[in-house]
């Protein structure tokens, strides 16, 4: 907190019923002071006012050094969000005031937001005590705040530790809605500001129209992944000593030239969550509802942390669609999460990333001259990359597709109930299409789609790998493939490849050799 205050306000200064006390924080656009109420306890709206509040001063006056047109817009966003949304995990706004004091040109005309006062910010807490024990619980509360925003149709746009506030009781709330935007369809438009370390790669150097830049809720999900990694391991998920280096690492990762290497200190249950937040493309990122379920589970409570019960139903919630049944449940303190209902959007993975030409996609791990159909390469490579088991490689998936069907998506074998490019049995495939382990709603029907078959294969192989007994004789990759043909239990029981699958495995070994580039294995 060595930077100068954006808006200096003397101690004891009076604005409305508030007296300015100590400074709390300053940001790029405004400064926050503690305020003590000196007058009546009712706001203009008849709402009860607390004894102390946080006063956020934003320099909007005509006498301020620069007239900032964008500042006006940022404030309007924040005020608008507070007016429309009151949710337990979002910081409250009580009032807005305008300073009328011609004798102080630097303050005259400033906008003051009267906000709920917090104890400190998460960033202050982290710098005092990194890797706090309460980390998982705080993350669950942050995630709840995001879910409340997203379900109401808003995107935060600037999630980071400084914008997570901790209340006196230790609970977390989201704050600072300068960048927040209401969704219009699948997108919202936000001002072109961002915090580099929390910006998803697709927004790093994105196109900007005259309305600002397009942003999706998945941008908040990325930021949450970064935040979770930081809270749990005290390090950023992408390597580099400076924000610029980390930005370049994010760009390289998103282009597929680099892998995501999460900290080994990250507990396993969080590893999967962070990985699904930090997927290369926005389309692959886990949805907020699924994320909240997993985060809540990982935080060690099988229901969301307790919330103050609020009987008031806000207009925004009332107008929301059936997809927000869960939010009502949350707001009313009901905790039935087992049945996810019909409204949860499905999270499917492995939409091929189209940026790189498919014919050379992932050429470092999968040879380009051995007849793997170019159209399937991105799906194969992405499916393997979606799994952090080293043995689940693009070459293994390609070799299995070759051995199962010779890359024939129309394969149909009703006798064995196996279909498609990976010879899936539909009732099994149903459980493996989604990255989060939930079955898809309707039973897949032959002909099975290629993206679903390959994504499902990736997820299933990733599940098999840790279930195989360590130190079985033979190539681990071939053992995984054999377990896909039969089951990992069979392979473990046979202490290797069961005899009846030896021919299959021989062919597979041959293809593996053909598809693996020299030196990469």
């Amino acid at each position: 907190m060595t930077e100068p205050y954006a808006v200096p306000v003397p101690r004891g200064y009076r604005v409305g019923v508030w007296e300015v006390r100590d400074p709390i924080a300053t940001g790029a656009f405004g400064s926050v002071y503690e305020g003590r109420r000196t007058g009546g306890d009712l706001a203009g709206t008849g709402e009860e006012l607390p004894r102390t509040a946080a006063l956020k001063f934003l320099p909007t006056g005509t006498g301020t050094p620069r007239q900032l047109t964008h500042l006006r817009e940022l404030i309007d966003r924040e005020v608008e969000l507070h007016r429309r949304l009151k949710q337990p995990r979002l910081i409250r706004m009580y009032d807005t005031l305008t300073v009328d004091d011609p004798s102080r040109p630097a303050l005259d005309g400033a906008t003051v937001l009267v906000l709920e006062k917090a104890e400190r910010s998460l960033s202050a807490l982290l710098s005092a005590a990194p890797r706090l024990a309460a980390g998982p619980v705080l993350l669950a509360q942050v995630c709840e705040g995001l879910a409340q925003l997203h379900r109401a149709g808003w995107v935060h746009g600037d999630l980071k530790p400084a914008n997570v506030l901790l209340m006196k009781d230790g609970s977390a709330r989201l704050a600072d809605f300068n960048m927040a935007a209401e969704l219009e369809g699948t997108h919202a438009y936000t001002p072109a500001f961002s915090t580099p370390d929390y910006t998803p790669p697709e927004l790093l150097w994105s196109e900007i129209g005259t309305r600002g830049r397009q942003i999706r809720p998945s941008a908040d999900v990325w930021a949450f992944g970064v935040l979770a990694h930081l809270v749990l391991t005290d390090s950023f998920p992408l390597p580099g000593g400076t924000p610029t280096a980390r930005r370049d690492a994010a760009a390289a990762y998103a282009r597929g030239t680099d892998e995501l290497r999460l900290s080994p200190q990250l507990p396993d249950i969080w590893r999967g969550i962070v990985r699904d937040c930090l997927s290369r493309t926005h389309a692959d990122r886990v949805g907020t509802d699924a994320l909240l379920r997993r985060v809540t589970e990982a935080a060690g409570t099988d229901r969301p942390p307790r919330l103050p019960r609020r009987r008031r139903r806000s207009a925004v919630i009332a107008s929301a669609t059936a997809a927000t049944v869960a939010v009502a449940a949350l707001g009313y303190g009901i905790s039935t999460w087992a049945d996810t209902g019909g409204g949860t959007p499905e999270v499917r993975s492995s939409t091929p990333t189209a940026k790189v030409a498919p014919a050379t996609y992932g050429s470092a791990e999968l040879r380009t001259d051995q007849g793997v159909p170019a159209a399937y390469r991105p799906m194969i490579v992405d499916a393997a990359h979606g799994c952090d088991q080293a043995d689940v490689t693009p070459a293994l998936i390609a070799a299995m597709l070759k051995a199962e069907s010779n890359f024939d998506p129309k394969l149909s074998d009703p006798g064995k109930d196996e279909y498609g490019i990976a010879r899936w049995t539909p009732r099994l495939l149903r459980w493996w299409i989604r990255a989060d382990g939930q079955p898809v709603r309707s039973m897949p029907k032959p002909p099975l789609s290629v993206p679903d078959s390959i994504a499902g294969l990736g997820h299933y192989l990733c599940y098999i790998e840790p279930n195989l007994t360590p130190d079985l004789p033979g190539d681990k990759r071939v053992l995984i493939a054999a377990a896909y043909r039969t089951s990992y239990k069979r392979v473990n029981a046979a202490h290797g490849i069961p005899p009846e699958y030896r021919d299959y495995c021989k062919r597979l070994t041959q293809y593996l050799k053909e598809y693996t580039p020299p030196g990469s294995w």
Partner: protein
Amino acid sequence: MYSIIVVPPPTTEDQSTRTQLKLAPGERLTFGRSADCDVEIPHKGVSRRAGEITAQGAFWILSNLSGEQTYVVENPEGAGEHMKVGPGRLDAPVPFEFSRIVLPAAGDLLAVEVWAPRHDYLRSEGGLDGATTAPAFSVDRTKRYFAVLAALCEPRLRGAPHAPLPTVDQVVDRLRPNWPAASRTSVQWNIDYLAVKLRLKPGPDEADTGPRLNGKKESLVSLALRFDLVREDDLVVLAASPSGRAVR
């Protein structure tokens, strides 16, 4: 997600619209006489594998693969600022936002242009801390493109919010006192570069109108004013300075 743009020397066919090759951080591009190179420069005086350009974050590095020629990398806006990259020098970092690699080739000088539009510049209100909310673009207020942008924004900044935008010719006239070499082409070039630098999204109405640029100027100005890229006090860059060096 590219950060570097390479514009090869013009060939006879595409004099009007020169190719632009975009490189993302970590991507590399080779140039030389051989057809294996990413950029083929069919000139007898150029080595078969003459050199390599690698995008490295917001800047780029140059390797001189030739046997005996020294390449000069000039900053065309830098009043003679340049660097030399001798034969065999690998991965020399180039600091300029605009660069021209000059290849000496049997009496001719061939120029490969390289732009680095993602260079960052400090904004008065932001620090270097990655945790600070920062605007998505940064401009160098000493560059010509900034003077062009200021000239375009001037009428609206002077208090006429719906004033018509100056034409390219008017911009040329406005800038000539400080930039005697200003021409229609160079101003137009700067407008095109600004659209690249500010990552302007092409509007739906300019999708197939070809070289018409009214929409582009309009979008540039509204973006610049909306995000305060040019403010009233920035208009000093347009004022004629006695030494004539205020704007380079």
